[in-house]
């Protein structure tokens, strides 16, 4: 006997685990492409022998493209209100992006130009990155906005956010653990050809995950919400102004920037630290995975804790944990042996617990920030708010690694020495890693504790107000419809 679908009041499939799994698969797909980004600096400087400063400069250059690309695609999606799509506009854009991402990730790791002139290498890097970034943005921007249209129930959103974190975590963790064992040789040097093949395989895995998400996602909230009766003229500057006035969006963005500085900017320094300080880069993935244990343990409890304590309250405690753990990491005598590694792992364990608490609710916080925009300014602007958030996040992801690489060079890092840096340099990397993590944790604390203003009580008030407003609008529309019919 065929199982009967349980439908909600609007005739849509009732929100359930399939939605969460599908949403998680989306971030898994994004991360299949994104996870390799952390390997780019090592690939281009150590394997391709590109000058580290030149690489840092080029990375900033491609981030300028990002800066144009992100709000542009966000605006295109926001303004795309007339065209009808079978599965909705967000999913249509995600499908397009996922198609490109099949191969775009590998384009960033073309190993055959290793012996070419620096100019040729620079062109290959920039072209590969721009293509990858374009497709990534086409998939990622609507994916982020999708959360707010799958459900408007805060608990559902918290669940989606938590599952997104799981998808992201698996998408991050699988390559993070497996890749170092495959792409580095026994002397801790990167093998470029293997990175290229890995990128292709991950592209295919990501594509499959995206297709699963597209087929199993149900849009329950109208994608083009118009609160006021007269259609508003879209104004990017005004949207930017609104974004800056939107304290939850700014707070969540500052915290996310902190998180990404910690996760992305430190990546290259962490790899070099494992290559030259602990002299075992293959183990780096396992260490990182071990440090993820608290997040895995916390995620199933996220919803319960959020309901009890509130998102802001919970993530502030997490940020305090991170600050303390990173301060210990900076000051503790972490020696390049087993003992030092254990201290490093302990600190990372606590740091990632703190970061993980925020990470599980971060997307939900952005969803709330989009609601806050509507609550305070009367417009939702999902695409714009999300793309500006994404822009600043990418800024942290782009400027962060570039800046970190420049600092690494200043501290003696030399691409010529590849996976075997001087000990003094390796020691500098060990301190740089801790300093970057500490900086990230402090930023997270500032964003969440001092800027983000949607505590448990305010959030409840906002949700009630918006529900009342949407209810009134729905009744008004229904009455108008009846009047028209008469």
């Amino acid at each position, binding site marked *: 006997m065929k199982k009967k679908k349980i439908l909600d009041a609007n005739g849509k499939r009732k929100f359930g685990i399939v939605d969460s799994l599908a949403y998680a698969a989306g971030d898994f797909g994004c991360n299949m492409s994104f996870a390799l980004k952390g390997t780019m600096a090592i690939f281009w400087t150590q394997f391709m022998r590109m000058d580290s400063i030149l690489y840092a400069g080029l990375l900033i250059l491609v981030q300028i493209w990002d800066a144009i690309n992100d709000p542009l695609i966000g605006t295109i999606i926001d303004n795309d209100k007339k065209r009808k799509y079978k599965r909705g506009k967000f999913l249509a854009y995600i499908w397009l992006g996922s198609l490109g991402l099949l191969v775009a990730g590998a384009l960033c790791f073309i190993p055959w130009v290793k012996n070419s002139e620096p100019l040729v290498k620079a062109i290959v890097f920039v072209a590969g990155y721009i293509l990858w970034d374009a497709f990534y943005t086409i998939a990622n921007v609507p994916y982020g906005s999708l959360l707010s249209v799958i459900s408007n129930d805060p608990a559902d959103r918290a669940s989606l956010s938590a599952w997104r974190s799981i998808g992201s975590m698996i998408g991050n963790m699988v390559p993070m653990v497996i890749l170092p064992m495959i792409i580095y*040789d*026994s*002397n801790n*040097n990167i*093998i470029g050809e293997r990175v290229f093949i890995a990128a292709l395989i991950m592209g295919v895995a990501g594509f499959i995950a995206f297709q699963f998400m597209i087929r199993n996602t149900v849009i329950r909230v109208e994608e083009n919400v118009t609160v006021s009766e007269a259609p508003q003229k879209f104004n990017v500057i005004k949207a930017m102004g609104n974004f800056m006035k939107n304290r939850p969006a700014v707070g969540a963005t500052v915290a996310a920037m902190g998180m990404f500085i910690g996760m992305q900017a430190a990546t290259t320094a962490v790899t070099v630290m494992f290559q*030259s300080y602990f002299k075992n880069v293959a183990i780096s993935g396992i260490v990182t995975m071990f440090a993820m244990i608290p997040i895995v343990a916390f995620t199933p409890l996220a919803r319960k804790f959020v309901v009890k*304590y509130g998102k802001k*309250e919970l993530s502030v*405690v997490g940020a*305090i*944990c991170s600050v*303390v*753990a990173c301060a*210990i990491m900076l*000051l*503790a*005598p972490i*020696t*390049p*042996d087993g003992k*030092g590694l254990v*201290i490093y792992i*302990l600190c990372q364990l*606590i740091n990632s617990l703190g970061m993980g608490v925020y990470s599980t609710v971060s997307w939900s916080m952005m969803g709330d920030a989009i609601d806050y925009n509507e609550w305070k300014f009367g417009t939702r602007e999902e695409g714009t708010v999300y793309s500006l958030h994404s822009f600043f996040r990418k800024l942290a992801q782009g400027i962060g690694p570039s800046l970190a690489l420049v600092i690494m060079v200043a501290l003696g890092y030399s691409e*010529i*020495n*590849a996976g*075997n*840096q*001087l*000990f*003094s340099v*390796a*020691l500098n990397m060990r301190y740089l890693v801790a300093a970057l993590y500490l900086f990230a944790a402090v930023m997270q604390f500032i964003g969440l504790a001092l800027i983000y203003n949607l505590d448990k009580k305010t959030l409840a008030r906002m949700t009630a107000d918006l529900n009342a407003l949407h209810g009134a609008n729905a009744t008004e529309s229904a009455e108008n419809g009846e009047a028209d019919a008469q």
Partner: protein
Amino acid sequence: MKRIVSLILIALLTLSVFIFTGCGAINKSEVSILWSGDGEVKVPNSLINSMDRAMYIENISYVHYGANGDAAEQIKQAKAAIDKGCSALLVELVSPMSALEIVNAAKEKDIPVVFFNTLVDKAVVESYDKCVSVFSAIDTVADVQGQIIADYVKANFKKLDANTDGKINYVAYGTGVISTAAVKKANELLATEDYTVQTADKKKINTSIVFYDSTNIFSTLAPIAAGKAQAEIMEKDEKAIELIVTESDLVALDVLCALQDKDYNTNKLNTHFIPIFTVGEEADYKAYVLAGRPEIPSDLIIKDGDSDKVIKQKNKDIKKIAELKEYYEKNVYLVDLTYVNESELDEMIYTTINVIDSGRISGTVIADNDTIAVSVAKIVRNFIKGNGALDGIASKVKDGEVATVVVEGSIVSVRYKAYTK
């Protein structure tokens, strides 16, 4: 909520107290490390870099001093460090002849001495109960060097046998301990069927390596003296020596200079050469070798009035130099490899067993710098903490490890697995 936060904070603070216990170096006064070279850390694959790491792990504060190949300067540095009251003296000797003087000076002030990476007379080490020597096991090093010499002779016999007497005349500089064993090993191999060589008149023979002058082999231990001795030999008869064996790169480089003064072992086209087989101590070849990279000489520039034949020859020579230059850039560091992956080639410049010919240095890496450095640092830690100097130093043979540490009396030997070409 507040209770959870305070519990977390208490746990973190307890952890930090636990972690911070034991901070600060274990020695009150510095440990002085005296290097035969310049004492500067330049490349990762070097003993000095490994020493930095090992000393950091053991939490020992130290200072590097470089003697720049000057034995007298090294003795002066040792005495200055002893007068300053250093916790321990670690010495990579410029000349083994300095060992006794350094040991006697340290003994007076009860300062421990660890000789490392240099061959030191066992009697000198045993003359002081706070003296230890850490060095690669001589038989392993000699074995590797002997095999390299035999392989080299087999491959280059016609070029080597300058006086066409069917034998290879050699001179050795150093204590003779390694070179004698290495030559013995080489001759054992050269006597086998696999190592027969072809003479100029196409006869197959078993060659051997013989002393050029058995009365004058081991008299020169210091680099400058070795260079001078080689210059004197060259002055008498340029073709007298067909192969050179030394036990130190510093000595080898001085001998190389003496040869280059006579236009031997240069990077010019068609240079005469005498291979120098040596045991490495000095990591910084990069600058030396790159400085000697072949350039196109001005006399090869085509001038007005050059005949077609001259132009053709010049073009041919330029092409040869270009090829040679390319070869240098690709293969400047290593030819024979042990325990080195191909991917390491570009970076590997620290070599232990080297062959120097035509201005090119090639070699075989057998040294596990980390094993030597870790052994030295542990010995120093034991001295500082008042434990038995060699407690916990010896290691058992484990799969996948390059070297094992063997302790015999005050001599610590780092043994490497067999050489495989």
